[in-house]
């Protein structure tokens, strides 16, 4: 297991480094940071002074290295908008996003994987088709729209749930359903094809011929084979949710990372956007590394 991780580390580091360069470059090249810092009324002398004070008069590669060095020491700079340290800004806003992402993932896996097994156990039957229809719907529905419609039905008309915010568990019900619906179809598909693959394999035929009950065959043997892609997909999805929940956060007014990124983008708050992009990417790289390790632990064949 450790060997698997060690082998993947060079690529992971390279990817993380590249992402940091891209994150830095994309946002630095897309706007004039000095002008943002100094304000619209600043004259040329003030601009030069601001540039010197923030190290922005140096060549871009040097600026990048300085930024990276600060980053490695945990200093993400300060928000241009509020003057707060970016690290503490992110720390206070990460909570709701992490809760949202984890809860949606758990719900999607808890529903998607059994549906996938059910579909694989009855291929090309009515059950299979019905599950496919649910999956297509979940994949096709724009989640901001689905969230709004649910908001009107369950929060406004029926008054079962709160309309907006992130104070209580009840606030998370609709957003979690919305996000879970949109990520569930992939889990259904991956599980279904994994189980179908396994059911055709020799070891399942052997197990079947030994008289192992069908139910145990699915749960114990086939699902075990299908669980590897589910683990990988979970890692990828979690990484995606951390950076991709901006839409749902904005529909349900959840004060998480997504909404922070969105408002920072609108107000040209470069340091915050940069930090979020880089952190989310590095978390993603870490999660995929972790899922490789977990898979190697589940399946000894991958340890090679």
């Amino acid at each position, binding site marked *: 297991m450790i060997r698997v991780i060690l082998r993947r580390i060079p690529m992971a580091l*390279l990817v993380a480094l590249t992402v940091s360069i891209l994150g830095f470059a994309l946002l630095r090249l897309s706007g004039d940071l000095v002008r943002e810092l100094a304000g619209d009324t600043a004259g040329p002398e003030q601009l030069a002074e601001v540039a010197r004070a923030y190290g922005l008069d140096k060549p871009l590669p040097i600026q990048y290295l300085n930024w990276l060095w600060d980053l490695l020491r945990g200093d993400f700079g300060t928000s241009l908008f509020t003057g707060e340290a970016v690290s503490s800004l992110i720390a206070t806003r990460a909570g709701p996003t992490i809760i949202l992402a984890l809860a949606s993932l758990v719900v999607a896996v808890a529903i998607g994987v059994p549906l996938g097994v059910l579909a694989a156990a009855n291929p090309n039957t009515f059950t299979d088709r019905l599950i496919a229809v649910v999956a297509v719907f979940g994949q*096709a529905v*724009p989640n*901001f729209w*689905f969230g709004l419609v649910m908001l*009107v039905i369950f929060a406004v008309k029926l008054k079962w749930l709160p309309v907006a915010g992130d104070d209580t568990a009840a606030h998370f019900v609709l957003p979690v359903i919305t996000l879970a619906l949109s990520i569930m179809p992939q889990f259904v598909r991956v599980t279904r094809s994994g189980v179908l693959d396994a059911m055709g394999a020799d070891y399942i035929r052997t197990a079947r011929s030994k008289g192992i009950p069908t139910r145990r065959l699915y749960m114990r043997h086939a699902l075990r084979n299908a669980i590897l892609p589910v683990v990988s997909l979970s890692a990828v999805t979690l990484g995606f949710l951390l950076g991709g929940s901006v839409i749902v956060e904005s529909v349900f007014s959840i004060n998480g990372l997504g909404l922070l990124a*969105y408002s920072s983008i609108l107000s040209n708050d470069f340091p915050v956007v940069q930090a979020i*992009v880089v952190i989310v990417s590095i978390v993603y790289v870490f999660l995929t590394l972790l899922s490789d390790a977990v898979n190697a632990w589940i399946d000894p064949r991958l340890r090679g």
Partner: protein
Amino acid sequence: MANPSDRAGNPTLSPRQLMVMRAVGHRGFIIGAFVTALYVFMAVAAPLIAPFDPLDQNLLAKLAPPVWQDGGSWQHPLGTDSVGRDYLSRLIFGARISIMIGFFAALVSAIVGTSIGLLGGYFGGRVDAVVMYIVNVKLAMPGLLVALALVSAFGSSFVTLVIILSLLFWDRYAIVVRTLSQQFRNQDFVLAARAAGASTARILFRELLPNLMNAVIVVLTLEMALAIVIEAALSFLGLGVRPPNPSWGLMISEGRQYMFFRPHLVIAPGVAILGLVIAINVLGDGFRDIAAPEDRR
């Protein structure tokens, strides 16, 4: 599914004829194709079908109710929006934006992704390592956030929007094409071409590419569906298609504040997106079945 048109039964049919026969017998494909064609027709013929100009404001007829609510009339079957524009006409013209942006984003990313995947899969070795590195970097970046930041920085004209969206979608083509060209590169038809002295470019584009086309088309439908949803999402967040253009995502965002007493302002554009995206998905799934029935699961 029973298939009367198997190769064994019709030895005289060409693969293409077989595909057409299978297509005719595939219910999902036919329905998906029909609904998609309806949307395309709606987009192309929008000026002829739509009762009004989608941009014409009529401040005397703001928020007119739809025909099924009290005070509604057939003059505006879906009522009007907050500045008195005919909602049905905006909905019809909205198909243009969705389909154009979705299609071109999927197409541009198909060209980029297919080229990258073809290089990695065919050449292998160091070229492939570079390809996998680029794909990994793409996968690690939070695409939606980067897209939002780029739109905010570079604006959202049609061309910028298509380019930014295609940055989000090229990776799946690259992965699919890479895997397939790894399988193909040592098969007889490629080896024969190489032995006959064909240039690398010829092998890539005349031998390999035609064999990858079906898989690329399947991915294209999936990515086009996804691109339509993402365009709507960007427009909903105010960083996509600009007002007063009738993008469905933008219409949902504009209708949001009236959704308690005019819920159809939000529901109708959502249903329009949902119908188109489902149709394209079903069409793509059907095409996969038809193009490679032996891979069907």
